[in-house]
């Protein structure tokens, strides 16, 4: 298991060092600094083995986080743990920075003591941790509260404590999708997928049970024609529509609006075995914000924008670039925060720009032309042309990096729809209809690239 956790600043000074196992000595701290942080050649792998000790590391801004082990431990778990640790620290004190870490080092030690025992990761849910590890340690905890804490930490519902009360029961659902695209110069889609997340903010009293329904092909249409279309989901789910509310409402929607989800993953609160057998997503949510679900689709993605580049090299010292952007969604909708990055060779000396809409700038530090538009309606088209002058001395061939694009649109490009979210709380007196629910769809750009 994990032998120790170290945090360094960019100079390689130790900010936090917590050793869990006897086989990890103080020299391990130095070994990592010398061989990785101070190494002349940047290390090329996130796991390095130095003198039979393995170092797993990741970097956030200037801070190095490193876990050490001498055994053959579960590497995926170590990285998941490091990421979790970053999440926890961020939710306690915000940005991971040297100053924040120095100011909170006692807190970090306390957390490290709680979330790792002898190198075994323990309950690391922020909500629960916050209930008994506080920044103001002065707050005395009553006996009763203490038993609540311990049952929350170890309980079956380790992510939620009992006795939560809200005057108004409310929940927010954000469907956030990032569209990834790689397109060839000729406009051929080389690969595309949507990585979606359903983020829920719940302010619900008691221990509510929620049921969540989406327009997934299997749920909507139990008799799929081709099981290969949605590979991960088995379709042996029960077909008695009466017990499964999704099928009753599902018959009204047409199959066209249903989407094929390649794969989905859930927060630990979702009962996975129930999902597997009945294909229903039911859970008792943590209090506050959490990521309920992650999913991935590859089929029938409506790409919100298309970039059409035209690059002409005129002699050795001049280049002409023309970029057309087309928006491809309903005219009533508006895309926002549009930014297109057009890479330029490193020997660029001057750039003349002309664009129909928005602002375009040549950023020599980034070696790119950055073209920004605050918003753009659906079914519109805009164009930028640039003349680039080059210094002749550069011999190296320019390996045209792809043109990348950022944007935000108010719909889900995969076609993902929330069909219902029902809340049941048996002990307290509020029903599903008393709960206020909000749903929002955001489509964002992931890696949205067109080769030039």
């Amino acid at each position, binding site marked *: 298991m994990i032998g120790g956790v170290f945090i360094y600043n960019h100079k390689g000074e130790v900010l936090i060092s917590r050793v869990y196992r006897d086989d990890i000595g103080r020299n391990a701290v130095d070994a990592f600094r010398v061989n990785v942080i101070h190494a002349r050649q940047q290390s090329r792998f996130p796991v390095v*083995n130095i003198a039979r000790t393995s170092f797993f590391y990741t970097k956030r801004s200037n801070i190095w986080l490193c876990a050490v082990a001498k055994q053959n431990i579960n590497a995926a778990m170590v990285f998941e743990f490091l990421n979790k640790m970053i999440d926890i620290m961020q939710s306690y004190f915000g940005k991971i920075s040297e100053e924040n870490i120095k100011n909170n080092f006692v807190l970090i030690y306390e957390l490290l003591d709680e979330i790792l025992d002898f190198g075994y990761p*323990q309950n690391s849910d922020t909500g629960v941790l916050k209930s008994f590890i506080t920044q103001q340690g002065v707050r005395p905890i009553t006996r009763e509260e203490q038993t609540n804490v311990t049952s929350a930490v170890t309980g079956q519902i380790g992510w939620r404590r009992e006795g939560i009360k809200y005057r108004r029961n409310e929940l927010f659902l954000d469907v956030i999708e990032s569209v990834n695209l790689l397109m060839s110069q000729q406009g051929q889609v*080389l690969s595309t997928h949507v990585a979606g997340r359903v983020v829920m903010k719940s302010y619900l009293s008691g221990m509510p049970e929620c049921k969540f329904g989406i327009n997934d092909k299997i749920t909507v249409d139990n008799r799929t024609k081709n099981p290969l279309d949605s590979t991960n989901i088995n379709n042996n789910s029960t077909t008695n529509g009466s017990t499964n509310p999704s099928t009753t409402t599902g018959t009204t929607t047409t199959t066209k609006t249903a989407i094929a989800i390649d*794969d989905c993953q859930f927060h630990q609160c979702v009962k996975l075995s129930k999902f597997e057998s009945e294909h229903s997503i039911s859970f008792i949510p943590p209090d506050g914000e959490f990521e309920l679900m992650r999913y991935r689709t590859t089929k029938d993605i409506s790409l919100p924008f298309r970039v059409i580049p035209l690059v002409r090299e005129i002699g050795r010292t001049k280049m002409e670039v023309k970029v057309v952007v087309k928006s491809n969604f309903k005219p009533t909708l508006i895309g926002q925060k549009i930014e297109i990055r057009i890479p330029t060779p490193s020997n660029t000396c001057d750039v003349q720009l002309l664009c129909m809409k928005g602002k375009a700038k040549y950023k020599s530090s980034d070696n790119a032309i950055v073209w920004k538009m605050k918003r753009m309606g659906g079914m519109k088209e805009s164009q930028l042309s640039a003349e680039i002058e080059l210094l002749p001395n550069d011999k190296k061939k320019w390996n045209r990096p792809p043109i990348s694009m950022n944007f935000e649109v108010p719909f889900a490009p995969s076609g993902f729809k929330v069909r219902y979210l029902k809340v049941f709380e048996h002990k307290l007196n509020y029903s599903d209809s008393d709960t206020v629910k909000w749903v929002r769809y955001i489509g964002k750009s992931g890696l949205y690239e067109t080769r030039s």
Partner: protein
Amino acid sequence: MAEIESKKGEIYELKAELNSDKRERKKEALKKVIASMTVGKDVSQLFPDVINCMQIDNLELKKLVYLYLMNYAKTQPEMAILAVNTFAKDCNDPSPLIRALAVRTMGCIRVEKITEHLCEPLRKCLKDEDPYVRKTAAVCVAKLYDINQQLVFDQGFLDLLKDLLSDSNPMVVANAVAALSEISEQSPQIQVFDLNGPTVNKLLTALNECSEWGQVFILDTIANYPPKDDKDAQSICERITPRLAHANSAVVLSTVKVLMKFLELIDPNSEFVQNLYRKLAPPLVTLLSTEPEIQYVALRNINLIVQKRSDILKNEMKVFFVKYNDPIYVKLEKLDIMIRLTNSNNIAQVLAELKEYATEVDVDFVRKAVRAIGRCAIKVEPAAERCVNTLIDLIQTKVNYVVQEAIVVIKDIFRKYPNKYESIIAILCENLDSLDEPEARASMIWIVGEYAERIDNADELLEGFLDGFKDENNQVQLQLLTAIVKLFLKKPTETQELVTKVLTLVTQETDNPDLRDRGYIYWRLLSTDPKAAKEVVLAEKPLISEETDLLEPTLLDELICHIGSLASVYHKPPNTFVEGRFIMKKKLPFRTGIHHEYEDITTMQTNQQQQQQQVVISSNVGSLIDDFDILGPMSNTSSTTMNTFEHTQQQTSSAIPNLLDDELSSILGLDSNVGGHQTPMMNTNTSLPINRLTTSTGNDLDDLFGDINLHTGPSSISFSSPNTLVLPKEIWVSAQKGKGLEISGTFARRNNQIVMEMDFTNKALQSMNDFALQLNRNSFGLTPLQPLQILNPLFPNQTIPIQLILNANGPIMKMDPLTNLQIAIKNNIDIFYFNCIVPIHILFVHNGEIDKMTFLQTWQDIPENNEIKYQLQNINNLSIDDLQNKLRLNNIHTITRTIIEQKEMLYQTIKLTNGIFILIELKITPGNRTIAFSLKTKVPDVANLIIQAYELILSSN
């Protein structure tokens, strides 16, 4: 001086503050102490003052004190004892948080004297009413085990820990599982953790309810459970597949590990397996949208999965396309997987991608992309031409490392498609001067030598290389030597001078024995029989395999058992990077199939083996195959330690040094060392001596023993060794014991069948009838093919010969000695029981030959302590050829024969009827009758019998 003063002052100040009455000041002081500790300053002098703060009933303060205590207790054991009382007191505190904190901390204080005092509090906490305390206590047992194993046994903590497996709280179960599996991994010799059906059932139930980390512990443990049968495996698979949808990638990968392992037990053609394949692909793909570090772990594992079961991801090629912003380690891994998934359907897309990658900035990545194009050409024949053209385009870029890499792969393409693309040689030759890497130079030289007759100035080119011969890398030197000899054989008139020059150079001016020996051999060949030289040096080359860079299969299987762990990231077995502890070599479960009858003995063997292999010698093959060093995550920093480690390993297994050498086969005319280890398959049929055995010698010997040979006609000659050595019959049952029936018998191997030959003599006064025979269960499953048939009664003083053919597929029971056979014979008078010994050479089967590579791998796979050495006496002073023939007749196959340091080395194999292989090395010093014999087998029990067999065979006439 001033600095020391100020330091003293600082400590003094802290001391004062720690002893202050105000809680806030104490706390601030403690924080300062911990801060100094973190930076590595020595604040151990404050020990007594800090301990004093322990009494205070404040959780936060307590935590700080404990943190200090864990750090310094070891350096101040005397003082640490002062803390014992507080721990004991805290373990009785009404607050579960304080109880847990105490039990958590005290396990981290590694002071012998303290440990003893902790047993009672720990025992209490293991039965605490609060689950939070119990889950902490469970981990504490593992901590204690790390400090003092005996104490844990003596105090019965293991049983308490096992009780926690049935705890109502899933978190407690998870921690107990984690602790137990770590303990059992540390001490595999004792059965700490009995994973049986009911336990696994409990774990599977807890799996649904515990935290993400708990799920990882449980899944990793279930992976070690051997399912009873395919149904058991199937039902566990069904219960864990929902975990594939978990957001935590460690849970997903551990689930994949269990599935991959248990899939071995399930019929691959069943619908269940096909379904599972469909369910496995999407989560694996999803892992590629996680953080890059996790992507890296996932990709390293996918690389293994694709090698083991390529079907799972066969349709997912596109997701492995490299993104411009991927970190380099992700890019390199994706590229590797892309090539593994390439086939004729997607080759166009792949090639377009690779071309794109070859223009990127990162040198390692570009090199790999270029190499990948070559691999595509070799793998997908219809696309070869397009690949070659792409490579030529790349060579035209004149980017130095691209050119070199391209030439290396083009050499392989030439090997795969001889005489097809020689038109490009001219382009290659243009770039001769820019090559500065040994591999590229060696490849280019090989190409020139191979196609010398089509290159007008081949002699000039090679002569150019010869100028700086001494400074060249060894690989280049060997290649150059061979190339010049080839050139000479093709154009003898113009190049005589050149060949003399190189031969003189390598034989007189070099220290490298390989080079020198190869030089001598060429020289001798050329001077004695140029025609033979031509046949040898210009022999047709065997095909190279399509897939390169594959992991060696046994290593791959082992790594599949380690999915998700570091071993799967490094692609190395754990014992190569984990220190000291005993490590059990993990194995994939074995599906019982058609060979049902051998099952018992093989499982028995594997069990034995697992117990013996506490320290397993790693297979060097893995690292040999792993030829791109840049791929290994251990490259830069750790290379020195790893190398020395592997070096020592190689020394230990030096018993077969020359088999390791590809050079051997290239001496025999197969220029394999250009292809290096990528083409291990080519070494198969180089062992000449075997083929020299003619049927006539076989017949001679046939006549010696072949007195009966009744039922088979001349067709038996088609086997090289129909009959083996037969011992004279001996009396098994005396007339006295047999109430008048005397039985003498022996065993023979005729026409590859085991024959029991007996003479029944009636020495009584009445005739006998109703004969029947039965064999008891025995080690090799020998059983009569048909029942004993004696139709006529056996009259007094009559003798009848009986031949009974035996099968080796009967029920198995281990006997002592192994070759013991219990026989029962019945007649109208009585039943007689007796024992006899089956000479083991009767059990050697005729098809026991294996190829050289397999031999080498098997030899390495068998641990060193299974090796048995012996001094054999060559009593009859047989010549080596005679000796070989004699052994060959008894189904002892010579795999290869070489000379090392004037000693003849013979490498031989034996296969027993039950499939056990025995590997033998004979070292014969000419003129000396003593033969150094050494033997390796996975089942060492047979070793002594084998030695006896050798002695018997060698001493026979």
